[in-house]
């Protein structure tokens, strides 16, 4: 719980703890199968629901699988799915928002009205609807969440492109005779992408909550695969006898979201405040 102290010890430490936790989670995601003490999917009915001990630090679940191993190996899917959602959202946001901002006119009108429509839906309801169409499974959950989040990003990218287009250095390069494509590639897009990544980092935690929520409802990964949301779903029948089974995977989600929130705040503080004001326009 030392991470909670970050609130009190000031911004700098909060940022450090955020970076450290995210690094730790990335390590777990990359090397999970090697770090885990046991095979995360190995069923051993003789070792069902063991309490925490020296051989099983966090005990075992209802099928005798080592909880710690499942948590560690689960990092990959839990974190990976969020990274994929983020990637998809950014690509959609940059392409659609970029086109709207650059082309302008009727295309801009059409794309922005489309965004408005998508922003009208309650996020989770739209995600439900899309999963019903696509079918359940982690890939479809990722697609569904990305499709219910992209519109906000597209609008922001459009706003940033429009703001960048009239900056002095872009006008200067235009005077110097740079073509439209060069101006976009060299001056507009690098700035947009940088700002966008910072804003996205503030949103990762939120996306993670959405993905894990759908996964908890049983719409994502199918049971034998270790993933935090589905582990909570698996464990919910045992709340009366083995509440600790619910505690650990939830704690992992909580810590990850917190880490991303700290990271996002730290990156935002490093961003030029005038940029934030500009985006809000």
């Amino acid at each position, binding site marked *: 719980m030392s991470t909670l102290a970050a609130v009190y010890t000031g911004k700098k430490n909060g940022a450090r703890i955020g970076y450290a936790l995210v690094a730790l989670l990335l390590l777990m995601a990359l090397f999970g199968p090697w770090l885990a003490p046991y095979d995360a999917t190995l069923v051993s009915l003789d070792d069902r629901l063991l309490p925490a001990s020296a051989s099983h630090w966090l005990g075992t679940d209802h099928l005798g699988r080592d909880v710690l191993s499942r948590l560690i190996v689960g990092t990959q899917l839990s974190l990976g799915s969020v990274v994929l959602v983020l990637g998809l959202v950014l690509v959609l946001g940059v392409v659609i928002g970029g086109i709207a901002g650059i082309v302008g006119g009727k295309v801009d009108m059409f794309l922005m009205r489309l965004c408005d429509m998508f922003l*009208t839906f309650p996020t989770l309801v739209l995600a439900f*609807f899309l999963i019903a*169409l696509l079918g359940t499974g982690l890939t479809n959950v990722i697609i569904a969440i990305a499709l219910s989040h992209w519109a906000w990003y597209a609008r922001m990218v459009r706003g940033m492109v429009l703001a960048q287009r009239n900056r002095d250095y872009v006008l200067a390069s235009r005077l110097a005779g740079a073509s439209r494509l060069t101006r976009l590639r060299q001056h507009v897009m690098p700035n947009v992408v940088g700002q966008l990544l910072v804003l996205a980092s503030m949103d990762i935690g939120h996306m993670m909550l959405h993905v894990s929520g759908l996964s908890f409802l*049983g719409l994502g990964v199918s049971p034998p695969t270790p993933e935090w949301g589905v582990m909570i779903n698996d464990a919910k029948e045992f709340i009366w006898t083995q509440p600790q089974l619910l505690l650990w995977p939830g704690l992992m989600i909580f810590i990850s979201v917190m880490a991303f929130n700290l990271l996002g705040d730290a990156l935002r503080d490093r961003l030029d405040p005038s940029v934030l004001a500009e985006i809000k326009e």
Partner: protein
Amino acid sequence: MLRYIILRLVLLIPVLLGVSLIVFVLLHLGNGDPALDYLRLSQIPPTDAALAEARHALGLDRPLPEQYLTWLWNAVHLDFGMSYITGRPVLDDILYYLPATLQLGGLALLATLVMSIPLGLAAARWKGRWPDQVVRFITFIGVSMPNFWLAFLLIALFSLWLGWLPPMGRGGPQHLLMPVLAIALMSMSINARLLRASLLDVREHRHVFYARARGLNEKRVWRDHILRNAWMPLVTATGMHIGELLGGALVIETIFAWPGVGRFAVSAVLNRDFPVMQCFTLLLTTLLVLCNLVVDICYAWLDPRTRFSGVMA
């Protein structure tokens, strides 16, 4: 004011048309064949003849624009078709479950407002002192907590350990406490932070300085000059939270065996019961649009400056 409300109501029509068009297009872009799903769920073997007949019965053999108009016409008359599973009119099923969800969502909205205002006020009033620290601690936890996990923690604490509250079901206020808190904590935290920041910002404005210079007491300065201006962002944010709260209610009610539309929707998703999903999506989206309209009207009422610019935008 009345003109503003009527104008906003008229502007809803294109929004809802757009939403219905998106739902319709997505439904037809989906990789499934509704006729096949219909046969599967009605337990009719999918022979070619049966498929053709189902397509005809469901109107899938008509041109798409015609299908859309028929569908829209029926939807406007509140006819969303029959559930593939229960065989009953979809709308009846959803309206049967929806009030329980709205009760949870509505109370969560109320809890969000009721809790975030004193927290935000206390944090801003005693900035840097212990009330601020406590509020920052609560909101820091609140923005990172998965709502479904919080629900289990609450059950473990209040039902399993202390035995104070019933873990599931719908009944008196004791059944509401845990689900509402689980749904509201996130929005409450965001709102409290927002109000704190907004209060600290307004506190520095010149009119506040002037109010103090006129010799008004602190209480009046805070009530009439700071809070009155600072809570406007809160109204906007509340509009944005309604969708989140609704989504939260859908997830949380499955944990507390709350007889709402959430579990019904999840089973419809798992069974690919399209008429149910389409009605569910349209209904909840319309609801959200109407809620946002109410928020906007409140905003215009609270802040006369937006009455005209809002319509023009």
